[in-house]
């Protein structure tokens, strides 16, 4: 099912569960929900959704998946399909609340954690976090969602987020490059101190 890619990535495991579900194993849907809810949560939150909007968008997207089940030809696409749907649902709910923008915009800081509330275990984490927050908001959003997937899935996730400018995989892409450059130029950054 994964073709040449034998690595069990998140998208591949999701594809297996989705196939089993379509073949009549109802419980496989629970497995799919367990697998993908974290990446979907962060997809909604990375767009600046409040917790309530994000919960609503994630839940609605799962219901849409069951309704649209037969229209998803390739099971491997199910993760991307859900990310796209969460993004649209988030936008729809936000629009209903008076927001007009569709894409991840430049003013979305309300769902980004306040570092003072974070327990950053190591100095390296703190330095990384500082530079992460200085990235353009779109890069923060992309890296936040990508971080919950596996490397072979990055390109599909970038595409699902409609962010070709930051497209990651197989090359590093602009957003990760910015983060690495910022770290390399920071004298307090001690290489791989993570």
């Amino acid at each position, binding site marked *: 099912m994964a073709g040449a890619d034998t690595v069990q990535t998140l998208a591949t495991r999701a594809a297996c569960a989705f196939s089993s579900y379509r073949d009549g194993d109802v419980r496989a849907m629970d497995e799919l929900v367990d697998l993908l809810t974290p990446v979907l*949560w962060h997809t909604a939150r990375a767009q600046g959704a409040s917790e309530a909007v994000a*919960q609503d968008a994630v*839940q609605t997207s*799962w219901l849409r998946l069951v309704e649209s089940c037969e229209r998803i030809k390739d099971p491997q696409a199910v993760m991307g399909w859900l990310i796209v749907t969460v993004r649209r649902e988030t936008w729809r709910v936000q629009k209903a609340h008076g927001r007009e923008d569709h894409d991840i915009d430049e003013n979305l800081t309300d769902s980004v954690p306040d570092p003072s509330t*974070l327990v950053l275990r190591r100095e390296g984490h703190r330095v990384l976090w500082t530079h992460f927050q200085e990235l353009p908001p779109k890069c923060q959003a992309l890296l936040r969602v990508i*971080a919950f997937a596996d*490397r072979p899935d990055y390109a599909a996730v970038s595409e699902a987020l409609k962010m070709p400018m930051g497209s990651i995989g*197989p090359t*590093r892409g*602009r957003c990760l490059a910015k983060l690495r450059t910022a770290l390399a130029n920071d004298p307090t950054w001690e290489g791989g101190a993570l």
Partner: protein
Amino acid sequence: MSTDRDIAAQPLDDFDGILLDTVAEVFRAADPVPAGLVEDVKFALTVQALHAEVAELQRVGAESALARSEYTQTQTMTFSAEALSVMVTLSPIDADEVRVDGWVTGHDSTVRVEIRAGTRTITAEVDDDGRFTVDPAPRGLVRFVFLPAGDVRPVITPTVEI
């Protein structure tokens, strides 16, 4: 010195993986998936799959708080839906198991009840008087699903602790 553009065009390496793992770790701690979201999603999907009506939890017996901690007292809970009402009595067996006695009223032809605990489902038949018993049932978070005969929608309860 390499420009951003050069660095961007290089293939991903293990250090990119470490950076992203750390980003995920920070977000997992700072903005976790809300407790209950995954269960809410599964519940919504079950309701959708069954075309079920969701019952309201009307009442939990007053002694329940104590019973939860001591496993000694019986506890009752009542659910109501458009099609039917149910009273459930829980009699503790031990720390892991409980006897469930139920009484379905309002719909004469409910034929089957399911107790859904995670991926496990226990089924019981409802008798002519509307009564059913599951003995023993595992303690924990469960939902009851009532499957009436004929054209009536199934009824599912919210998650309750037994």
